[in-house]
């Protein structure tokens, strides 16, 4: 009888029938929070826990609310509770492991190992587990999980980066170099990989490479977020301005500008003075073709940079100038896309006015000088495109050239400049740029074909034939390439091949009068 009563007591308690004191974790500094919307969100999430204390989901959500707003400590017991209530749910264990990693790595190893038994293919869990193991000095186990992370998410540079780090810690310098080269292949702008490569190069005695990597490492990493789809669940729980901005930026990075606009719109008001928010909002509007609103947002941004003392105080004159240049460049894009070419030209010219001259070029703060040059190269190229679209080919050529002066390797500009020369019938001037193009892009049919024609006019028949054949290999129905090939053979005196090429033209374009005449002429000359 006693046993039955005891069992009943356990059952009623576990199903929440009895009144229970639920110990709900709370941030210690909640009194400092002024934002009512956040206090409401916390209250709602806590109420849900109070109402359904045996529901893992509500505990997890409370954890998300805390974590998204930067409170890791109270989030931990929430995830712990959620994972106890739903032991087969991967997410709660994952977040529990991820959060404990930086405080109690031993505990993190336990949680993440268990999580991976539920979902063995979630690469970020392998990465966090590897990191926890690394903190504990367990290099072999960490390496094992990094390999698994790499298998499941091969495009994630962190696996290679951390494998490189482990190799370096073991003084396996050449192996470290292999991993780090792969990491840099996946993300050439990851400064962490450059740091380690600088050390590898130093250890290998390659001073030049060491200096090159050290220089690259001085600039912050770009695109270095760990790809972690589950993190979205946390972000969605955020209700303060930084969270809206973070979500907006993540949507932007995923190319979902419509959703990005929605996030940024929440933050936009006359009181908003965060230039980065205005910028990202404008770009999102632009990429969703909301041109008038994008234009208005960019103009507001420029007026803040020009007139608002608070905004001006936050950044150096150089930084402000660079931001203004970027804003004018986007404005130019809007005008161009809406057919207002004269205004687009004016905007591009405005952007170019903010470029510092070469002698001042040494310091751009946190900005990588190559990024700085790349941006202004783009502005020149954009201006050239606008000029070209209005038939002002000389001006277009001049700005394509200036774009190439800043970034000599930019393929698209070589292509466009060659195209502009072609239109001006300056074939000799176009030639080196087409050569640059086909050197790096062996599938650019137009460049190969035009280079073939240039070779033909220069009587370089063999090269011309080779180039036309390349065109045909890529595009078997390229009629003009067959025609040009026929002419090249004809000029070279190889009549059978010329006839063959012209006949192929006729197959593709029956009745082509020029080719018919050519064939008649060739047959008569035989």
């Amino acid at each position, binding site marked *: 009888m006693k046993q039955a009563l005891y069992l009943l007591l356990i059952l009623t308690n576990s199903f929440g029938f009895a009144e229970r004191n639920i110990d709900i974790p709370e*941030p*210690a*500094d909640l009194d*400092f*929070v*002024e*934002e009512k919307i*956040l206090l409401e969100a916390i209250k709602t999430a806590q109420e849900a826990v109070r109402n359904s204390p045996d529901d893992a989901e509500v505990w997890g959500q409370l954890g998300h609310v805390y974590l*998204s*707003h*930067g*409170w890791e*400590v*109270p989030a931990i017991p929430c995830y712990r509770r959620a994972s106890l209530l739903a032991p087969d749910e991967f997410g709660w264990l994952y977040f529990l492991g991820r959060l404990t990693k*930086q*405080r*109690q*790595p*031993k505990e993190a190893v336990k949680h993440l190992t268990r999580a991976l038994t539920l979902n063995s293919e979630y690469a970020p869990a392998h990465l966090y587990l590897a990191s926890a193991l*690394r*903190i*504990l*000095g367990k*290099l072999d186990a960490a390496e094992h999980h990094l390999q698994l992370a790499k298998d499941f998410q091969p495009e994630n540079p962190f696996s290679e*980066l*951390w494998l490189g*780090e482990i190799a*370096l*810690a073991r*003084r396996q310098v050449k192996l470290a170099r292999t991993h780090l080269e792969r990491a840099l292949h996946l993300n050439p702008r990851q*400064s*962490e*990989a*450059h*740091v*380690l490569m*600088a*050390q590898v190069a*130093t*250890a290998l005695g390659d001073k030049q490479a*060491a*200096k090159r*990597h*050290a220089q690259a*490492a*001085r600039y912050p990493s770009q695109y270095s977020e760990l790809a972690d789809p589950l993190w979205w669940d946390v972000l969605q729980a*955020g209700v*303060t*301005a*930084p*969270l809206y901005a973070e979500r907006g930026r993540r949507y932007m990075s995923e190319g979902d500008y419509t959703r990005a606009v929605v996030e940024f719109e929440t933050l936009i008001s006359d009181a908003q003075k965060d230039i980065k928010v205005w910028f990202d909002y404008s770009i999102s509007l632009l990429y969703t073709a909301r041109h008038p609103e994008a234009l208005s947002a960019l103009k507001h941004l420029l007026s803040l940079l020009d007139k608002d003392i608070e905004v001006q*105080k936050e950044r*150096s004159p150089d930084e402000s100038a660079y931001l203004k240049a970027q804003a004018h460049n986007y404005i130019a894009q809007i005008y161009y896309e809406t057919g207002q070419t004269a205004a687009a030209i004016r905007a591009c010219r405005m952007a170019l006015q903010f470029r510092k001259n070469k002698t001042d070029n040494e310091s751009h703060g946190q900005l990588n000088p190559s990024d700085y040059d790349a941006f202004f190269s783009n502005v020149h190229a954009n201006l050239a495109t606008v000029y070209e679209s209005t038939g002002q080919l000389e001006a277009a050529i001049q700005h394509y050239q200036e774009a190439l002066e800043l970034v000599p390797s930019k393929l698209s500009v070589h292509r466009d400049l060659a195209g502009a020369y072609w239109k001006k019938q300056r074939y000799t001037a176009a030639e080196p740029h087409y050569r640059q193009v086909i050197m790096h892009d062996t599938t650019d049919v137009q460049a190969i074909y035009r280079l073939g024609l240039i070779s033909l006019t220069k009587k370089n028949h063999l090269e011309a034939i080779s180039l036309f054949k390349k065109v045909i290999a890529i595009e078997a129905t390229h009629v003009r390439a067959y025609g040009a090939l026929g002419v090249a053979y004809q000029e070279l005196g190889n009549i059978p091949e010329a006839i063959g090429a012209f006949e192929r033209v006729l197959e593709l374009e029956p009745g082509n009068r020029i080719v018919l005449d050519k064939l008649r002429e060739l047959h008569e000359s035989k």
Partner: protein
Amino acid sequence: MTLTMFTKLPAITLTVVIGLLWAAHAETNKPLFTEVTAALGFSETEAAWPAGTHALPEVIGSGVALFDYNNDGALDILHIRFSPPDGGEPLAVAPAPNQLFQQQPDGTFVDVTEIAGIGHEGYGQGVAIGDVDNDGDVDVYVTNYGTDVFYRNNGDGTFALKEVGLSNEAWGTSATFGDYDRDGDLDLYVANYVQFDPEMVCRGKHSAIDYCNPKVFEPATDRLFRNNGDGFFTDVTAQAGIAAMPGRGLGVVCLDLTGDGWADFFVANDGEANHLWVNQTDGTFAEEAILHGLAFNAYGQPEGSMGIGVGDINDDTLPDLFATHLSGETNTLYIASNHSVFTDMTEIAGFAGRDLRWTGFGCGFLDFDNDGYLDIALVNGRVKRGEILDGADVGEFWNFYAEPNLLFQGSRTASGFAFSDVSSRAPDFTAPIEVSRGMAFGDIDRDGDVDMVVSNLDNRLRVFRNDAPPHQHHWLFVQAITQNRNALGAQVTLQTESLTLTGYVLSGTSYLSSSEPSVHFGLGTIDKIQAIDVHWQDGSRERFPGTTANRRVKVHQGKGRAF
């Protein structure tokens, strides 16, 4: 069988064995450090520290110096202090003069600030100690949030505030003296922090106001001052190349870290790459922290670097470094190699993430138990609000920032070295939940082991007496003298029959603080030193005769045998 043998032991033997076991038990359970602040005469009557106003200088704290200002052979204490937050007015100036405490013959301390004339009322931050005029008494440089000050020691127990060309109006933090140009006199490097804007208000993701991340402010340029040798200094920051790369500097040491015999400067920067200014031997420096592995952690990531410890933990004579960092980051152990590349070996050294939760500031290598293996002590305290830990009692506002300190004991393993957390064995030092910043090391009671002084954020000083070394562990202090002063930057190596131990003549290490420059060696059971080798800062090397353990010896440059 064993039991039978055991029971056959004579009663007297059993008594001895049990007695020995008790003694060993008592020794291992004895606290490693004992707080003696009040017993040494320091006042405990500081008023409760007012709530902060979230102005960044309030959480940077201040340093402390352990030095012998009056050449009486006993260490004195200079406590750098700053104004308390005042009723919500950021950085209101309420005087909190620095305080000099002179050690008395009975080991207690007496406040001699007024007599000594060294009670500057600036917003004190850090302190550097060095004899800049080679007159045999040490001078004092104090960094401030505001203009720094320099005090020349008059040699009669007083100081004179002097304008000698050491003009730094930026936000100075740690500073250190060192002879970078090998001209025989001490030059000065001052780490500067950020270009602080008191009107900046910072909020976290939760929208609540808190102390700003220093990254929201532009970094400041450190300053290098060359000693002209005529009592004055010249600001050579620009011509030395230091101005080329501003940083958010909090810690600095001056030592040859590249193995070329010339003094370099290692600067711990907050939240960005550390700087290693490598001496080019022509009066200029090149920043090469990345190339030498000291800019970032093992993952190539910048950390919030604060304090710096220096020591040779693996007995290879090369200086290894320890840097304290923010919570969530490791305190990083950089091990030097022969090709002057440092490797972050934190995670191989057995810390196992025990310090990850805390934000470290003052720190240092010390062999607290004189066993011949360097240990690590560090003090903690947050710069952003966190959970209130049990036992925190530093005021409603500051409890959010309070954390315990840590003590790690070094040992040798098959793979090299390891550190184990022995914090629980030093409860006076590690149990209080406070906000600590500055930390200095020295043998205050002259008993052959290293004691510690800590300055807390509320201008409170704490002194910890070392009670750790067992009787059988020996020690040696070496004071290396050049030009009538401590040979800052010199390397001292003890040759014994079984091992080689190396230490460095440094005062400016840790965080905002200055320690006793004599080199302490724990010797374990070794009681005889075969030779003392000194690699002087000017590049010369000398060997001095051996000695017996448990004494303080002085070695003078030029009196040894060159080698």
